[in-house]
């Protein structure tokens, strides 16, 4: 009869054994050494051992294998080299560790990886609440696959806007609450931007080091700002004159810059020149101000806005 030990305990003992022994061990030897911690039947023991091995590898412990030849042909030996999984001493100072702890306490990812890294670096999770916090959400189901692919330069496959895409992810950007992937889109044969939360279904990643990121690649510059989005369209009219009431004018001025100001009116309202080549994006931007903004010119754009409003107010 196998002795009753928990799988967790058996895994700990297996790891200790594979690290401790000078020579690689076969499964038969492992079972002998661990004295009946594995089930008696060969088949069940093999299955349990495979489970343990997979779980340990998942934790970042590389279990090496070698298939023997000669008399023992076909038998596999296993061993673990400590230096392959142990963190080398980074010689962090107390000050540096504290700074990392503060960063982890302040920046929230919605995942525990930061805390885990801290523990491994000998630090501690700060349990007291910081007076400042930043949320950089990593909550998307595909996030770990994507970040791993970007870090290790793996090609990604996913569905986006109803099409199957194959993308070499050059980089990632977090801006305004969204994560973007910037990469080479094999379908379009060009560089494209993808929003992570718009990816449909699962993401599949290929081999590491599958591509090179172009030199001088600029992550932030690759994702258009709202201002650039309004201008990125094929509409005939490229700019519109928009009158914004005093209450909201300061915000628009900050967003589009002083160069967009056409005229400051006496009542505090301001006429701005705003890109509108992408009319859909322009309308979304304009209507965020509801009745506090109005298109003055050109007449064609004004008419389109009025027509949209008339249709909506007619309840069509």
């Amino acid at each position, binding site marked *: 009869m196998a002795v009753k030990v928990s799988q967790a305990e058996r*895994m700990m003992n297996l790891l200790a054994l594979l690290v401790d022994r000078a020579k690689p061990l076969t499964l038969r030897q492992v079972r002998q050494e661990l004295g009946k911690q594995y089930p008696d039947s060969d088949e069940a023991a093999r299955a349990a051992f495979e489970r343990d091995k997979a779980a340990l590898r998942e934790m970042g412990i590389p279990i090496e294998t070698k298939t023997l030849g000669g008399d023992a042909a076909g038998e596999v030996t296993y061993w673990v080299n400590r230096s392959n999984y142990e963190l080398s001493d980074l010689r962090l100072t107390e000050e540096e560790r504290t700074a990392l702890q503060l*960063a982890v306490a302040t920046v929230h990812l919605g995942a525990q*990886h930061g805390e885990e890294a801290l523990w491994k670096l000998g630090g501690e999770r700060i349990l007291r609440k910081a007076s400042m916090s930043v949320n950089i959400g990593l909550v998307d189901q595909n996030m770990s696959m994507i970040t791993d692919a*970007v870090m290790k330069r793996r090609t990604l496959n996913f569905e986006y806007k109803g099409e199957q895409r194959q993308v070499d992810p050059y*980089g990632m950007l*977090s801006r305004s609450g969204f994560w973007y992937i910037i990469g080479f889109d094999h379908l379009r044969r060009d560089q494209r931007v993808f929003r992570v939360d718009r990816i449909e279904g699962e993401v599949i990643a290929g081999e590491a080091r599958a591509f090179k990121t172009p030199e001088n690649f600029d992550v932030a510059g690759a994702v258009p700002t709202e201002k650039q989005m309004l201008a990125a369209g094929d509409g005939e009219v490229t700019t519109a004159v928009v009158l914004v009431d005093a209450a909201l004018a300061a915000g628009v001025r900050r967003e589009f810059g002083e160069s967009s100001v056409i005229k400051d009116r006496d009542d505090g309202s301001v006429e701005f020149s705003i890109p509108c080549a992408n009319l859909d994006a322009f309308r979304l931007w304009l209507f965020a101000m509801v009745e*506090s903004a109005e298109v003055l010119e050109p007449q064609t754009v004004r008419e389109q806005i009025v027509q949209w409003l008339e249709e909506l107010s007619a309840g069509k």
Partner: protein
Amino acid sequence: MATKKKAKSTRKPVKTRPVKTRPAKKRTAKKSAAKTTSRPARRGPRSAAQRVSVLLVMLPWIMQRQRVKISTMARQFNLTEAELIEDLQMAAVCGVPPYTPDALIDVYMDNGMVIAEVPLVFSRPLKLSTAELFAVSVMAQTAMQLPGANKKGPLASALTKLAPLMPSGAETIKVQLPKARYVKELLTASSSGERQEIEYFSPATQKRTMRTITARKVFEDAGRWYVAADDHLSGEDRVFRVDRIEQLSGTEIFDQLREVRDDELPWFSESLQQVTLRVQKSARWIVESYPYVSRVDNADGSVDLTMSVTSSHWLGRLLLRAGKGVKVLKPAQYKNLATETARSVLSRYSASNSASNSTSNSAS
């Protein structure tokens, strides 16, 4: 946040912040968990792999410290004390055959303390995983952008030491924080307790109000800066959008410092109304951009979304932007809100049309 009731039109009284459902949910979870343990509730028993991976992190950690209070350690690792003791007791019998003392994990618990001596095999921490390296890199570069960060300080030098571990792709992962005036000032105020006088703009009421606040916590969420504060105008705890603070100055009145936990943030001071919207594909950005309470995907590709709404002004704006891509299913009071909002914007255009007509008439 503005509470002044809007005098004009048929609109309901308004508050300005879009909905956050998360804090309310968290609060209930915490409360129920607090009865039995000090950590957030977690479902189901832990797997063997979970227990081993935590142990492999905990053993080197305790090895460095040698003596730690059980309660402190349990909190640190998000375990109950019972779970921690169970894991450590298991670790105490692990080792290498023939299980001589030097090969066993020597751990015992005494008087509320954990005391441990760990054999070589378990004494060094595991390498950082790619996910952990990513997290550290993102957190550190974000922290480096915060007001008051020292670009040549210990965080920067820690990152330099970590750099050799980073895969090459880490260089092209960037976080951009929103820029807002007064973040630094509010942060200073939250640690000094000095009341600030602010001029605050509410787009819902189209009004600026002067108010004094005591800032408690400054935070960024989904691309915006907020400050949680005691609002002395309303006498309530409020969350303000920092980009809507037009002016700010210190008052030289100091309040006692107080901590605000994330799950205590006063996003709302009243209960919220829920609406159900049918969202077509063309307005899918609504599903992506706002928190919702529940979601039903229909066969035709549309989505029925139930969300909490802080004000009819906010909802009206959403409906206006989405146009025909969205319809209010319930409650009935909002069924005509899209047409009403469109009409009120339209009236601005007709007013200026007639104004310019009369100008040209008088000129001719």
